[in-house]
């Protein structure tokens, strides 16, 4: 018997994994509970009884970047971000309704040699400036590049979400991958939900946190208010467990949902959670985070990946030429 088996026999819950989520952007303030006096687990109705809106659009985005040239130690980055909204029809098939992309260069132009800077500025119109102080520290520089690209992507997604919510039908919902609170307009929309898969920022503590992280599958937590994103717009949020975490890890199958800060959100939290629970099938495989990734959001991502420039595909383990055979 292994030592951990002895722990499990002693009452611990079996686990697996060790990967931690990347931290969410922005600082997390402690949450204010808006449903009940204490954070509780609320069982959801059976998935087959879930009320799924007839009209739903899904928004997701992707980013790609790669160092494509060096001017001395200055790393010149080619980047691509894209986002799309795809509406689900009555047959369950997604159709693209909004779509935007941006190809741009990330470069500290003031640190480049004049001839190369001239060449760059003549051949590329879309250059995203970056602080040149980190040029001498390549690793930190690339972290800065990454955050820059993410910021551009978040901006693109926000624009698209606002455009989409402006045109949403009377009964149509929008589910977006990530924080709802990035855009005040979207955050206040009555039929927009943000679905967050990463749990780097914790809004709960103590007994409430433990209840949230050990939430059984098919349950949601009580609703609490959070402020997120750089706009600090208040939204209501709660956790939903899509798949049993026992035997996996605490975050397995755990979603955090954001809706507008309105009493109606609290009233409908169980109904909306039941809907999202029903969305766990089909599985979003082969995505590694399929346990938290809703399939339609996965499909939007796959759609965007198919359109992304091939030269910015993620590097494989080996940089040797790779063949299909």
């Amino acid at each position, binding site marked *: 018997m292994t030592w951990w088996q002895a722990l499990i026999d002693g009452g611990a819950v079996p686990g697996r994994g060790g990967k931690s989520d990347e931290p969410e952007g922005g600082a997390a303030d402690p949450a204010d509970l808006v449903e009940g006096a204490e954070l509780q687990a609320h069982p959801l109705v059976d998935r*087959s009884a879930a009320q799924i809106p007839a009209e739903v659009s899904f928004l997701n985005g992707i980013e790609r970047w790669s160092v494509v040239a060096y001017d001395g130690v200055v790393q010149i980055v080619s980047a691509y971000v894209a986002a799309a909204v795809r509406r*689900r029809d009555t047959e*369950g098939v997604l159709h693209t309704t909004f779509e935007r992309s941006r190809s741009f260069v990330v470069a500290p132009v003031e640190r480049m040699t004049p001839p190369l800077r001239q060449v760059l500025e003549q051949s590329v119109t879309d250059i995203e400036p970056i602080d040149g102080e980190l040029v001498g520290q390549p690793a930190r520089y690339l972290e800065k590049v990454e955050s820059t690209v993410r910021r551009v992507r978040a901006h693109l997604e926000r624009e698209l979400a606002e455009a989409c919510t402006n045109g949403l039908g009377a009964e149509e919902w929008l589910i977006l991958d990530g924080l709802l609170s990035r855009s005040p307009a979207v955050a206040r929309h009555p039929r927009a939900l943000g679905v967050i898969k990463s749990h780097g920022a914790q809004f709960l503590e103590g007994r409430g946190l433990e209840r949230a992280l050990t939430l059984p599958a098919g349950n949601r937590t009580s609703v609490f208010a959070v402020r997120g994103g750089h706009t600090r717009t208040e939204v209501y949020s709660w956790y939903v467990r899509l798949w049993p975490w026992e035997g996996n890890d605490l975050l397995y199958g755990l979603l955090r949902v954001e809706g507008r800060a309105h009493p109606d959100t609290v009233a409908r939290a169980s109904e909306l959670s039941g809907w999202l629970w029903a969305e766990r099938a*089909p599985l979003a*495989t082969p995505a590694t985070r399929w346990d938290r990734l809703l399939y339609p959001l996965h499909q939007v991502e796959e759609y965007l990946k198919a359109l992304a420039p091939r030269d910015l595909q993620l590097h494989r383990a080996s940089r040797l030429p790779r063949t299909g055979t």
Partner: protein
Amino acid sequence: MIATARSDAAPIGRVVATELKPSTPHQFHFWTATDTSIGIGAIVKVEELGAGGSGIGRIVYGVVTEGFAYSDLATPLHDVVGAEGDPTRAVHPPTARQQIRYWTAAVLRQMPEEPLQPVPLGQVFVAGDADVAQALRMDAYLYSATPTAIPIGLYTSAGLEAPVYLDADFLIGPEAAHLNISGVSGLATKTSAVEFLLASIFAHFPAHKGRVAALCFNVKGPDLCFLDQPGNLSDEDRRRYERLAVPSTPFERVRLYAPLKADGVNLNTLRTHPDLVGAVEPLTWGLQEVVDYAEVLLNRDDIDAKADAFIDFLRDRVLGRTFDDGFGTTHRVQTFADLDRLFRSIFDGLEITAGGRSDSWRTHHIATMRKVRNRLLNISTRCKGLVTDDGPSSDLPWEEFEDRTVYVIDIANVDPLGQDLVFARVVSKLREQLERRELGVDAVVVFVDELNKYAPGDGPETYVKKMLLDISERGRYLGLVLFGAEQFRSQVHRRVVGNAGTQVFGRMDMDELATPGYQVLTPATKSKLATLPIGELMVRHPHFTQPIFVRFPKPPVLRGRDGVERFPPAMDVPFDDAVVRQLVRLDQGGRGGRIRPNQVKDLIADRDQDDVRRALAAVRHTRPEDALAYFRKVLGARIAPEAAVPRERHAVPPLNPISEEPY
């Protein structure tokens, strides 16, 4: 001509190529919407963007040979997990999985044809009429100054309908020739297809290629007995006939031949209804017609070189000549009865004149002669009705074949030996006449069903098989074209099917499709072949680089089964009534109206039936203006001299095969 403008129609798909599944000069892959109108056998067109992104570059035509559908499901287990093991939960997921319709197509034609390159990544369109003509290379013989196109059916796919044509130069000759059709029995596909194709040939055979006729052996029931009678066509069938520019009417000129039954007067066919029997000509042959094909009739196992030599002797020195048997009797052997007399004279001579001391005659041993006598005379017994002991024969018009006429020989109820004889002699005569250019037409299509029986891949080398091989390999130079049909193509001699320039397939049995001959077909094509509906065929033709599926209309003639229902065969009539009926039909001048039955019956009363048959055969042979007068004359003239010389027997008696004679 290569089109220079892009297709106006919306594309239905796009070519995709990966390292694992690349495009090649002969194959490509494309995807379509999930809800698409194309399927296996559909013809598609790929258009490559021209240089600079304007106009069109290379155009490729292909036929869909395989289809795939799959989703983004990584493993079936994920579906189980998603549904929590409950299939009912998996029925209506909120979001449909991303899925693909992915097709493989075989290249039919590339334009330009040189340099031959892999299929480009381009948009895929459904092929229209003109595209089908281009794809199948039909433009060369459809739009030329001397078109040679023969419609075989309609290509139908994606709501489009385009005629498909065969090239007469490759169907009738001389470039290639022959057609072979395979398919399971009982669906009437093979016979119907040949009937339709014959109608199409007659309607479209180009004048510059001369005159054409067809000769069909009816070997099963009433299959081909009603080709001159209209069948029941639906409006859809008539529309297809119109689209193919083929008249939806039965054959205008049909000549039917059938042997007589053993009674020598009733026809051995199912087309004996009083309204139709008049159009059936008796087919009877005598010794002269048969002896040249003795090889067909004699079992090779017991006819050795010595017997062969004796048959040759009879053929060269005896038949049709005045011949002294060496025992004081002169013979002129023209019939089986004459031959029997000659044999008896020889045997008596050896027994009596030579006192039994000699056992050979003209170097031929008596045992050999007995064996040959036994076998030859047995023919007239086994094939009684087809082979007559005595009297003139009734044969096909070997020098007067008519243009666009179908000659049907009904041998369905004839002994297999007789069928072989009919087949061998008819085909040999056709060949002889065509070689001499004396048949009356320039080309003859010979339709033979049941090739599994007549030209099997294994088994003994029969005379019939050799003849079929000969037609297959050399017939196209003569204009002798074989349209063969069988159930199992794999079991027909491969030189017979291999020499057929055009191959047609109806619904096939899966076991048959599993044989090596079908390895070139994809599983999807095989599945389609195994479930082909009536009226649909797969066609391979020298101009088509890939098999093409076509629909053909129901033939415009009465099907055999319907024919016997509408025109039930008459019961055999008594001898005298049969004679009356035949004389009425043979009376050319008076059209039968001046022949009164009682007149004929009085004439033949108390007359020997063999004499009456001979007289009737003479009328049939001569075709006089006044049939009755000539019949009376022949009956009288024939009887008188023979009455003076009492015959030992009235007819050649059947030989008892279990006699004490060891041969």
